[in-house]
């Protein structure tokens, strides 16, 4: 039952041995620049002739609306919140990620299970349950972690998208206002990401550097993974 490619108790009805593609996850807290870098990586890979799909947290067909609705005002307990993420992830895993890997694509995941681990741990103080829940997840071929300190992050987020309720962990009542709460919540998340970076051997990239430098580093981590991965011939996959 236990298959080395699964994180824990796997999908017993699926055989992962024919997955030819590569799964690359980019992790990091809110507002750290993951999406931008994933876009650039996709472009870079496609120019080289690799087939690429990207998959993003809470973007499944099944769950994206439900999660939006739930976050829009319903009271969410910590189990439901984590289970909604898990359902979203499972839907994408079975309908997007696994089929793409089977066809030899490179899958770039904007956030992966570690985001769920960090968020649940900050709320529960328990690491076991959430890791058991995500036992069916595939272990990525590579995890890149965009690391930032909370001071830089706060400034950056205020300048760009602003702070929202959930990114500030307001359900945890950590601070009196959005700003204080954001900083406390995000520092807890970063602390947990840092621990996981050691435990799961993430490739840590300093997200305070310039976008060019970060991109360069990411590519440096990805290249060795692609060696031995057969490049798609013909390059018929046109970037969107």
């Amino acid at each position, binding site marked *: *039952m236990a298959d080395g490619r699964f994180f*824990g*108790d*796997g*999908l*017993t*009805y699926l055989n992962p041995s024919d997955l030819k593609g590569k799964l690359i996850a980019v992790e990091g807290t809110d507002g750290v620049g993951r999406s931008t870098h994933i876009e650039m990586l996709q472009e870079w890979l496609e120019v080289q002739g690799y087939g690429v799909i990207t998959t993003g947290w809470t973007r499944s*067909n*099944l*769950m994206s*609306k*439900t999660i939006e*609705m*739930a976050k*829009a*005002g*319903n*009271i969410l*307990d910590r*189990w*439901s919140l984590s*289970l*909604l993420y*898990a*359902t979203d992830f*499972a*839907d994408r895993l*079975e*309908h997007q990620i696994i089929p793409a890997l089977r066809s030899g694509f490179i899958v770039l995941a904007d956030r992966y299970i570690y985001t769920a681990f960090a968020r649940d741990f900050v709320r529960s103080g328990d690491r*076991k*349950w959430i890791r*058991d*829940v995500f*036992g*069916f997840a595939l272990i990525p071929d590579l995890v890149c972690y965009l690391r930032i300190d909370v001071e830089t992050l706060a400034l950056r987020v205020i300048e760009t998208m602003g702070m929202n309720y959930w990114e500030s962990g307001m359900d945890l009542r950590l601070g009196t206002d959005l700003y204080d709460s954001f900083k406390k919540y995000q520092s807890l998340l970063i602390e947990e990401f840092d621990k996981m970076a050691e435990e799961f051997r993430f490739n840590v990239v300093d997200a305070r550097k310039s976008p060019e430098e970060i991109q360069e580093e990411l590519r440096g981590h990805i290249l060795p993974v692609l060696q031995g991965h057969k490049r798609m011939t013909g390059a018929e996959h046109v970037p969107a």
Partner: protein
Amino acid sequence: MSEQESTKVAPHPYPGKLIIVEGIDGSGKSTQLLLLHKWLESKGHKVFFTEWNSSDLVKATTKRGKKAKSLTPTTFSLLHATDFASRLYHQILPPLKAGMLVLADRYMYTAFARDVVRGVSPDWVRKLYNFAIKPDMAFYYRVPIEVAISRLLRGTRGQFKYYEAGMDMNLSTDVTESFRLFQSRILAEYDKIVDEFGLLTMDATQDIETQQEHMRTLVEEALRGYKPRRGTYGRRTLFWRRFDVPKSE
């Protein structure tokens, strides 16, 4: 492993009582629970009722997924767990903490039986529900498959629903045959669960009154020493006021 054991054996710390029923479709468990509900209320208890797969949070999603036939064994299982978590938090725990009675039509054992037959790992689904609390009483209404089928076909429902008959598993193109195969496997899983979690097995082939009499005797015994608690008005069934949830789609 030790944590998992705790869900099996450790009783919950709350002053209320949680009574649940399990069994396949057509076992008559819902009828029995309804009659128990009436009886408890007639004795002056404040009783709360909760049902499998009924929370606002995921009902629409499950429906959408079923319609699109895009649910996999894992997403099916996770959606039910989400529903359960939401009901546990909003409907089950508050009255239990207040010292009241809660009746649940199906509990986590339904997932242990059904989701495993659909193909998820038995270990995984048990870990998934690790946050659940142990019911004070768990009744399993055991019924032979043919009795369940004839009840459902004679009854008000008339025909089987797609997922209830396990049609997504391609066991048979005939709905009744598919139901028979699917639910027989579920019965076999329940038999394991009864031993594992110590459910009280009830003979669901007996007539309704006999079964109910038996159930009431057992519940009366279990409630000896329980101090009923209720508010002055006894009408309120909501514990949390929610913001308005925008209707999906």
